[in-house]
Protein backbone atom coordinates (compact mmCIF):
# COMPACT_ATOMS: atom_id res chain seq x y z
CA UNK A 1 0.00 0.00 0.00
CA UNK A 2 1.38 3.42 -1.01
CA UNK A 3 4.58 1.73 -2.10
CA UNK A 4 4.97 -0.07 1.23
CA UNK A 5 4.50 -3.76 1.95
CA UNK A 6 1.31 -4.60 3.86
CA UNK A 7 2.65 -7.19 6.29
CA UNK A 8 -0.77 -8.64 7.16
CA UNK A 9 -1.73 -9.21 3.54
CA UNK A 10 1.69 -10.71 2.77
CA UNK A 11 1.33 -13.03 5.78
CA UNK A 12 -2.17 -14.07 4.67
CA UNK A 13 -0.97 -14.74 1.13
CA UNK A 14 1.95 -16.85 2.36
CA UNK A 15 -0.27 -18.89 4.69
CA UNK A 16 -2.89 -19.45 1.98
CA UNK A 17 -0.24 -20.54 -0.48
CA UNK A 18 1.33 -22.91 2.03
CA UNK A 19 -2.05 -24.38 2.97
CA UNK A 20 -3.04 -24.90 -0.67
CA UNK A 21 -0.64 -27.83 -0.94
CA UNK A 22 0.02 -27.02 -4.58
CA UNK A 23 3.03 -28.89 -5.92
CA UNK A 24 4.84 -25.64 -6.74
CA UNK A 25 3.85 -23.85 -3.55
CA UNK A 26 7.29 -24.16 -1.92
CA UNK A 27 9.08 -22.77 -4.97
CA UNK A 28 6.56 -19.92 -5.17
CA UNK A 29 6.97 -19.22 -1.46
CA UNK A 30 10.76 -19.16 -1.85
CA UNK A 31 10.44 -16.59 -4.65
CA UNK A 32 7.92 -14.61 -2.57
CA UNK A 33 10.36 -14.62 0.35
CA UNK A 34 13.13 -13.30 -1.91
CA UNK A 35 10.90 -10.50 -3.19
CA UNK A 36 9.98 -9.56 0.39
CA UNK A 37 13.66 -9.48 1.37
CA UNK A 38 14.42 -7.19 -1.59
CA UNK A 39 11.49 -4.97 -0.63
CA UNK A 40 12.76 -4.80 2.94
CA UNK A 41 16.26 -3.92 1.70
CA UNK A 42 14.81 -1.04 -0.34
CA UNK A 43 13.21 0.40 2.77
CA UNK A 44 16.09 -0.17 5.15
CA UNK A 45 19.18 2.02 5.32
CA UNK A 46 22.23 0.19 6.62
CA UNK A 47 24.38 2.85 8.23
CA UNK A 48 27.90 1.74 9.11
CA UNK A 49 30.51 3.80 10.90
CA UNK A 50 33.91 3.16 12.44
CA UNK A 51 32.74 4.26 15.91
CA UNK A 52 29.24 4.40 17.45
CA UNK A 53 27.29 7.46 16.34
CA UNK A 54 25.93 9.95 18.87
CA UNK A 55 22.10 9.96 19.19
CA UNK A 56 21.77 13.43 17.63
CA UNK A 57 23.88 12.36 14.64
CA UNK A 58 21.75 9.22 14.29
CA UNK A 59 18.60 11.36 14.33
CA UNK A 60 19.93 13.79 11.71
CA UNK A 61 21.06 10.89 9.51
CA UNK A 62 17.60 9.31 9.77
CA UNK A 63 15.97 12.66 8.92
CA UNK A 64 18.21 13.13 5.88
CA UNK A 65 17.50 9.59 4.67
CA UNK A 66 13.77 10.18 5.04
CA UNK A 67 14.12 13.30 2.88
CA UNK A 68 16.02 11.36 0.21
CA UNK A 69 14.09 8.08 0.15
CA UNK A 70 10.66 8.85 1.59
CA UNK A 71 8.98 8.34 4.96
CA UNK A 72 8.89 4.54 4.92
CA UNK A 73 12.62 4.14 5.47
CA UNK A 74 14.16 2.82 8.67
CA UNK A 75 17.83 3.14 9.54
CA UNK A 76 19.87 0.33 11.03
CA UNK A 77 23.08 1.57 12.68
CA UNK A 78 26.11 -0.65 13.12
CA UNK A 79 29.80 -0.28 13.92
CA UNK A 80 32.47 -1.47 11.47
CA UNK A 81 35.96 -0.50 12.69
CA UNK A 82 37.68 -1.40 9.39
CA UNK A 83 36.07 1.69 7.80
CA UNK A 84 38.66 3.70 9.82
CA UNK A 85 36.47 6.81 9.74
CA UNK A 86 33.47 8.34 8.02
CA UNK A 87 30.19 6.68 7.22
CA UNK A 88 28.87 4.13 4.70
CA UNK A 89 25.15 4.11 3.97
CA UNK A 90 23.40 1.56 1.77
CA UNK A 91 19.73 1.69 0.79
CA UNK A 92 18.79 -1.16 -1.54
CA UNK A 93 21.34 -0.95 -4.33
CA UNK A 94 22.21 2.71 -3.67
CA UNK A 95 25.48 3.17 -1.80
CA UNK A 96 26.82 6.40 -0.31
CA UNK A 97 30.35 5.63 0.82
CA UNK A 98 32.14 8.41 2.64
CA UNK A 99 34.42 6.17 4.66
CA UNK A 100 38.20 6.55 4.88
CA UNK A 101 38.50 2.97 3.62
CA UNK A 102 36.66 3.88 0.39
CA UNK A 103 38.78 7.02 0.04
CA UNK A 104 41.97 4.97 0.31
CA UNK A 105 40.61 2.49 -2.25
CA UNK A 106 39.84 5.38 -4.64
CA UNK A 107 43.33 6.75 -4.10
CA UNK A 108 44.84 3.33 -4.81
CA UNK A 109 42.86 3.12 -8.08
CA UNK A 110 44.05 6.55 -9.22
CA UNK A 111 47.73 5.45 -9.26
Amino acid at each position, binding site marked *: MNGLLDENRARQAARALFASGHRNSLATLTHFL*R*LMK*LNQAQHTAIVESATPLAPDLQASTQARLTLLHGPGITASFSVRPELIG*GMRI*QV*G*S*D*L*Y*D*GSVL*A*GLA*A*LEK*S*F
Partner: protein
Amino acid sequence: MATLLEEVEAQIAGAKLSPVKQNVGVIREIGDGVAKVDGLADAMLNEMLDLGHGITGLALNLEETEVGVIILGDYTQLEEGDEVRTTGKLLQVPVGKGLLGRVVNTLGEPIDDKGPIQSTVAYPVEKIAPGIIRRQSVNQPVQTGIMPIDAMIASTKP
Protein backbone atom coordinates in the same frame (compact mmCIF):
# COMPACT_ATOMS: atom_id res chain seq x y z
CA MET B 1 62.68 13.92 -6.39
CA ALA B 2 60.72 17.21 -6.42
CA THR B 3 58.97 16.12 -9.62
CA LEU B 4 57.98 12.81 -8.03
CA LEU B 5 56.56 14.57 -4.98
CA GLU B 6 54.61 16.97 -7.19
CA GLU B 7 53.30 14.05 -9.22
CA VAL B 8 52.10 12.18 -6.13
CA GLU B 9 50.55 15.37 -4.74
CA ALA B 10 48.71 15.90 -8.03
CA GLN B 11 47.42 12.32 -7.93
CA ILE B 12 46.14 12.78 -4.38
CA ALA B 13 44.56 16.13 -5.25
CA GLY B 14 42.90 14.64 -8.33
CA ALA B 15 41.44 11.63 -6.54
CA LYS B 16 37.68 11.87 -5.97
CA LEU B 17 37.36 11.32 -2.22
CA SER B 18 33.99 12.94 -1.61
CA PRO B 19 31.12 10.47 -1.18
CA VAL B 20 29.15 9.94 -4.36
CA LYS B 21 26.10 7.82 -4.97
CA GLN B 22 27.07 4.44 -6.35
CA ASN B 23 24.98 1.53 -7.50
CA VAL B 24 25.92 -1.82 -6.03
CA GLY B 25 24.71 -5.39 -6.10
CA VAL B 26 25.61 -8.75 -4.66
CA ILE B 27 26.43 -11.94 -6.55
CA ARG B 28 23.57 -14.41 -5.94
CA GLU B 29 24.62 -17.22 -8.27
CA ILE B 30 27.85 -17.82 -10.18
CA GLY B 31 29.15 -20.51 -12.48
CA ASP B 32 30.78 -21.07 -15.87
CA GLY B 33 31.54 -17.41 -16.49
CA VAL B 34 28.00 -16.24 -15.82
CA ALA B 35 26.65 -14.62 -12.65
CA LYS B 36 23.27 -13.47 -11.40
CA VAL B 37 23.52 -10.30 -9.36
CA ASP B 38 20.87 -8.97 -6.98
CA GLY B 39 20.47 -5.19 -6.93
CA LEU B 40 22.18 -2.99 -9.53
CA ALA B 41 18.90 -1.17 -10.14
CA ASP B 42 20.60 1.46 -12.32
CA ALA B 43 22.64 -0.93 -14.51
CA MET B 44 22.45 -0.35 -18.27
CA LEU B 45 22.39 -2.95 -21.02
CA ASN B 46 25.97 -3.73 -22.13
CA GLU B 47 27.40 -1.76 -19.22
CA MET B 48 30.77 -2.78 -17.83
CA LEU B 49 30.54 -3.83 -14.16
CA ASP B 50 33.31 -3.84 -11.60
CA LEU B 51 33.26 -7.29 -9.97
CA GLY B 52 36.29 -6.66 -7.78
CA HIS B 53 39.68 -8.44 -8.01
CA GLY B 54 40.26 -6.40 -11.20
CA ILE B 55 37.59 -8.41 -13.03
CA THR B 56 35.07 -6.79 -15.35
CA GLY B 57 31.62 -8.10 -16.16
CA LEU B 58 29.10 -7.27 -18.85
CA ALA B 59 25.48 -6.56 -17.87
CA LEU B 60 23.45 -8.45 -20.43
CA ASN B 61 20.19 -9.62 -18.92
CA LEU B 62 18.33 -6.88 -17.06
CA GLU B 63 15.46 -8.22 -14.97
CA GLU B 64 13.24 -6.60 -12.37
CA THR B 65 15.20 -7.79 -9.34
CA GLU B 66 18.48 -9.07 -10.75
CA VAL B 67 21.01 -8.67 -13.54
CA GLY B 68 22.55 -11.47 -15.58
CA VAL B 69 26.27 -10.82 -16.01
CA ILE B 70 28.87 -12.31 -18.34
CA ILE B 71 32.21 -12.39 -16.54
CA LEU B 72 35.09 -11.23 -18.74
CA GLY B 73 37.89 -12.64 -16.63
CA ASP B 74 38.81 -15.41 -14.20
CA TYR B 75 35.45 -16.18 -12.61
CA THR B 76 37.01 -18.68 -10.17
CA GLN B 77 38.22 -15.74 -8.06
CA LEU B 78 34.64 -14.65 -7.44
CA GLU B 79 32.06 -16.15 -5.14
CA GLU B 80 28.50 -15.66 -3.97
CA GLY B 81 28.09 -12.60 -1.77
CA ASP B 82 30.82 -10.56 -3.49
CA GLU B 83 29.95 -6.93 -4.16
CA VAL B 84 29.46 -5.68 -7.75
CA ARG B 85 29.47 -2.02 -8.82
CA THR B 86 28.32 -0.25 -11.94
CA THR B 87 30.91 1.79 -13.83
CA GLY B 88 28.63 3.99 -15.96
CA LYS B 89 30.54 2.91 -19.10
CA LEU B 90 29.16 0.79 -21.91
CA LEU B 91 31.42 -1.99 -23.18
CA GLN B 92 34.31 -0.24 -24.88
CA VAL B 93 37.78 -1.04 -26.14
CA PRO B 94 40.82 1.14 -26.85
CA VAL B 95 41.29 2.08 -30.50
CA GLY B 96 44.08 3.67 -32.53
CA LYS B 97 47.42 2.90 -34.11
CA GLY B 98 48.76 1.70 -30.76
CA LEU B 99 46.82 -1.52 -31.29
CA LEU B 100 48.54 -2.40 -34.60
CA GLY B 101 50.33 -5.72 -34.26
CA ARG B 102 49.17 -6.28 -30.69
CA VAL B 103 47.31 -9.24 -29.20
CA VAL B 104 44.47 -8.25 -26.89
CA ASN B 105 41.72 -9.92 -24.89
CA THR B 106 37.99 -9.23 -25.08
CA LEU B 107 38.43 -5.94 -23.22
CA GLY B 108 41.27 -4.74 -25.44
CA GLU B 109 43.86 -5.40 -22.73
CA PRO B 110 47.25 -6.60 -24.00
CA ILE B 111 48.08 -10.28 -23.54
CA ASP B 112 51.33 -10.34 -25.55
CA ASP B 113 53.68 -9.14 -22.78
CA LYS B 114 54.65 -6.08 -24.83
CA GLY B 115 53.56 -3.55 -22.24
CA PRO B 116 50.52 -1.30 -22.09
CA ILE B 117 48.77 -0.13 -25.24
CA GLN B 118 49.44 3.51 -26.12
CA SER B 119 45.91 4.66 -26.75
CA THR B 120 43.85 7.40 -25.17
CA VAL B 121 40.68 6.85 -27.18
CA ALA B 122 38.11 4.13 -26.52
CA TYR B 123 35.15 3.27 -28.73
CA PRO B 124 31.99 1.42 -27.71
CA VAL B 125 31.83 -2.14 -29.04
CA GLU B 126 28.17 -1.83 -29.95
CA LYS B 127 28.41 1.33 -32.02
CA ILE B 128 25.61 2.45 -34.31
CA ALA B 129 26.77 2.24 -37.94
CA PRO B 130 26.89 5.50 -39.94
CA GLY B 131 23.83 6.27 -42.06
CA ILE B 132 23.63 5.21 -45.69
CA ILE B 133 24.21 8.77 -46.95
CA ARG B 134 27.49 9.17 -45.05
CA ARG B 135 28.96 5.92 -46.36
CA GLN B 136 31.23 5.75 -49.40
CA SER B 137 29.30 4.71 -52.49
CA VAL B 138 29.96 1.24 -53.90
CA ASN B 139 29.66 0.05 -57.50
CA GLN B 140 31.66 -3.19 -57.78
CA PRO B 141 29.83 -6.42 -56.94
CA VAL B 142 31.48 -9.37 -55.21
CA GLN B 143 30.54 -12.97 -55.97
CA THR B 144 31.14 -15.43 -53.16
CA GLY B 145 30.63 -18.45 -55.43
CA ILE B 146 27.95 -19.81 -53.11
CA MET B 147 24.72 -19.59 -55.11
CA PRO B 148 22.20 -19.15 -52.27
CA ILE B 149 24.29 -16.32 -50.76
CA ASP B 150 24.88 -14.61 -54.11
CA ALA B 151 21.15 -14.93 -54.91
CA MET B 152 19.88 -13.53 -51.65
CA ILE B 153 22.54 -11.07 -50.49
CA ALA B 154 24.01 -8.28 -52.59
CA SER B 155 27.71 -7.98 -51.67
CA THR B 156 29.96 -5.25 -52.96
CA LYS B 157 33.57 -4.16 -52.67
CA PRO B 158 34.08 -0.97 -50.67
